[in-house]
């Protein structure tokens, strides 16, 4: 399996607190890797470093062999992200949020927004996720339900991700039906050769979905294994360190 994402000897400190140290991780094409850990284990910091939002103090993150150190790098290298807080602009429409920072433009010289194309593609992206309740892509995001916002954030990340997609609690605000839709989308993305890193507290689904589970404790990887045969209790025990 070709490695798409490679993390080597990663370290990050915030003042006197070591958030990450000596983290090594790789994700192959089409591989779903879940990051698990107790609160404060370093999952969110690691996600932020991988997506370029936070710069590491030590080590490196590479996508297809190219170093990633900023959000711009992440965008250029085809890394899509679903942030835990979703990172949506509530006053902008579904379409505007879906294409924010990545708008389709047309014309010579001054590039004008191609709103028709974006609206059509937004409808297609939402339909592809099977969300029948979110038909009007002109709606401001502030008027959407929590679940609809979550689906929109996933759709945006899927839209952007060409090589890697990072999902930080992508099913947190969803009902059972929508959880199924999002998990299916993750599988589809992986089937297309996109490497997936998933952070989730939904351990039963994580065990079903993932090719590998990586357990973080105190800012470092303590286990990197296939989930086959693991029980939720075993995983939780590893996470909290109460062996």
């Amino acid at each position: 399996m070709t490695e798409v994402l490679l993390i080597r000897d990663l370290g990050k400190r915030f003042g006197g607190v070591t958030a990450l140290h000596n983290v090594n991780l790789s994700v192959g094409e089409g591989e779903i890797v879940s990051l698990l850990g107790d609160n404060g284990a370093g999952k969110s910091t690691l996600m932020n470093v991988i997506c370029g939002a936070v710069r590491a103090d030590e080590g490196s993150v590479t996508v297809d062999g190219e170093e990633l150190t900023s959000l711009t790098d992440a965008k250029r290298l085809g890394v899509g992200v679903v942030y835990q807080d979703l990172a949506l602009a509530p006053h902008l429409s579904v379409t505007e949020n879906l294409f924010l920072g990545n708008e389709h433009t047309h014309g010579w010289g001054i590039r004008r927004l191609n709103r028709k194309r974006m609206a059509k593609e937004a409808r297609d992206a939402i339909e592809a996720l099977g969300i029948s309740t979110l038909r009007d892509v002109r709606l401001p995001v502030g008027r959407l339900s929590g679940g609809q916002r979550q689906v929109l954030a996933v759709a945006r990340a899927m839209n952007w991700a060409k090589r890697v997609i990072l999902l930080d609690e992508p099913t947190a605000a969803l009902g059972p039906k929508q959880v199924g839709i999002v998990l299916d989308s993750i599988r589809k993305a992986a089937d297309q050769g996109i490497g997936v890193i998933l952070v989730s507290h939904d351990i039963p689904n994580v065990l079903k979905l993932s090719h590998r589970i990586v357990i973080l404790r105190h800012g470092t990887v303590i286990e990197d294994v296939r989930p086959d045969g693991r029980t939720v209790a075993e995983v939780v025990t590893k996470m909290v360190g109460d062996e």
Partner: protein
Amino acid sequence: METTQTKPVVTAGPKETGKASGAGKPAAARGRRLSVTSLLGNRVAQVLTVEIALIIMFGFLSGGTAFFSDTNVRNMILTAAQVVLLGVAQAILMSAGQIDISQGAVVILSSVFGGKVMIAMSGSAPEAVAITVGLLVCVVTGITVGLINGFLVGRMGINSLVATLGMLSVASGVAAVVTKGTNIFGLPSGLQSGFGFAQIAGIPAPTLLMAVVVGVIWYFYRRTSWGTHVLAVGSNRLAASRVGIPTARKIAGVFVLSAFVCGISGFIDLARYSTTDISGHTNDAMASIAGALIGGTSLTGGGISFVGTIAGSLLAIILQSGLVIINLSPFYQTIAVGVLLIIAVSLDKLRRR
């Protein structure tokens, strides 16, 4: 011209953009159903209704001639040149979640520098050249101040109210030092005759300049990704930065735009009065904020209404002109604008409950 964000058709709540009035109107939602209900709930329609009522009232109270006289109408249109320019610039800042209370001081500073240069060049260069260089100096002065404001707010993270409060003091202080506190005279006569008092197709040249500047700003805001990015910064700065939008640069950009517009306004000031107004312009920023707010632009970012801002800005002009004509103190204008502002914001609050 149209609002940058329009009401989603499914909603029946407040019609204006921005956090202050709900979730705002996304730019993509162009379709709009016209009905009596929607018109009554539409801020632009409300402001225009008040303005038409005021125009009819002032026309009636002035005997039907004075308010509608050519001179008065021309004066109001001329005054609109500066008021609308500053209002639109302020609305754009507000859509990015920022505010600029140094606008009036920047108008003064740019007019002082521009005026000084024109006077200095008057003897040695052709008048047209001196005036053109003066215009450039006004604009460059504005842009310089805007860059400083933009750096302080966008890069240093200083609250825009605090940064521009400081700039208000610095800019007006520098203007006073440069002029020793007195207005400058001796500007090229062609400045007033060739631009300030000039008309093209019956419309004052400064008003036409304002229309062009506002039209260009509107075009870029509405038709390019710049406007969407500014709105995104105002709506959720963290979200905007996470999708790769250079938020500090966008914020600096809107401050530069505001100050650039102040520079143009400073030039118009020189052209209209053939002198500076060192002690004036104290209410410019407050008037532009009020115009934008009355027109429906939220103070907290994420939404904007261009038409509303223009309508809101014109309200103060109509009030001031009308009160003078019916022999009431123009000081009542500030009271009336304040009352209308409070009513407009209160109506939004009530509607959202």
